């Protein structure tokens, strides 16, 4: 499936043709890492301020979609390849559910972070890092699903 994807995406049809303007290219390539950074900040600061997995994931997806829109789909493949998006999306949901199942296997309830195998932490901080791990899964799923929907619309 991956080879057909790259063939599809290397073909620049009229819909996915990037703009020729160097201003747009340079501006989007400069702004996109900043949006990525803000997205990481919003994601990691979800414990202390408004934010968290969903909002951070949407910001990360916005950075990648900006590159997709300005550079075109084929040139923005190195940032996030099209073939990996849906698999990463499934992986994010799997991380979330896997943490829940892990805590079942170690003797707790479903998604009871108290039973995660990190014995050097005290229970309160175990929950703190459990929340963080779960938010990682949420972020990956939201980010890659938005990119995957955009790629599906263009047929990549």
């Amino acid at each position, binding site marked *: *499936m991956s080879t*057909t994807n790259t063939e*599809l995406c290397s073909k620049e049809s009229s819909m996915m043709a990037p703009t020729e303007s160097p201003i747009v290219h340079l501006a989007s390539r400069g702004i996109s890492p900043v949006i990525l950074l803000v997205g990481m900040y919003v994601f990691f600061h*979800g*414990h*202390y*301020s*408004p934010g*968290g*997995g*969903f909002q951070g994931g949407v910001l990360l997806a916005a950075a990648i979609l900006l590159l997709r829109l300005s550079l075109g789909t084929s040139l923005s493949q190195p940032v996030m390849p099209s073939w990996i998006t*849906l698999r990463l*999306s*499934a992986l*994010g*949901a799997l991380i*979330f*559910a896997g943490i*829940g199942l892990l805590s079942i296997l170690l003797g707790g309830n*479903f*998604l009871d*972070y108290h039973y995660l195998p990190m014995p050097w932490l005290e229970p*309160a*901080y175990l*929950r*703190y890092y*459990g*929340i963080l791990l*779960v*938010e990682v*899964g*949420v972020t990956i*799923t*939201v980010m*890659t*699903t*938005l990119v*995957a*929907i955009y790629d*599906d*619309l263009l*047929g990549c």
Partner: protein
Amino acid sequence: MKTLQYLLLLTFLGILIVAVTNLPPRGDVTAPVHQHVNPAGTIVAGTYFIQHAYEDARTPNMLTVVLADYRAFDTLGEVIVVFAGGLACFFILNRGRRKP
């Protein structure tokens, strides 16, 4: 195949109807959620979360604790809804476009 689809739909409809009819009545005063007493002495739903969120998870943002710890199962459902939406877009938008 069509019959199987309709049977599946009817089965899920039956499960939904059974689940909805077995729900507790809305706004039940005797439900455990509504029995918590806040420091001012009045009975308020959800006081437990406000009082214990920081001690339980060392996280100042109460909303994150409720979303990802106390009600994490709900958030798991949301994530799976997002994933299912992406999967449905994949199957609908790529219909007839890609030959395996």
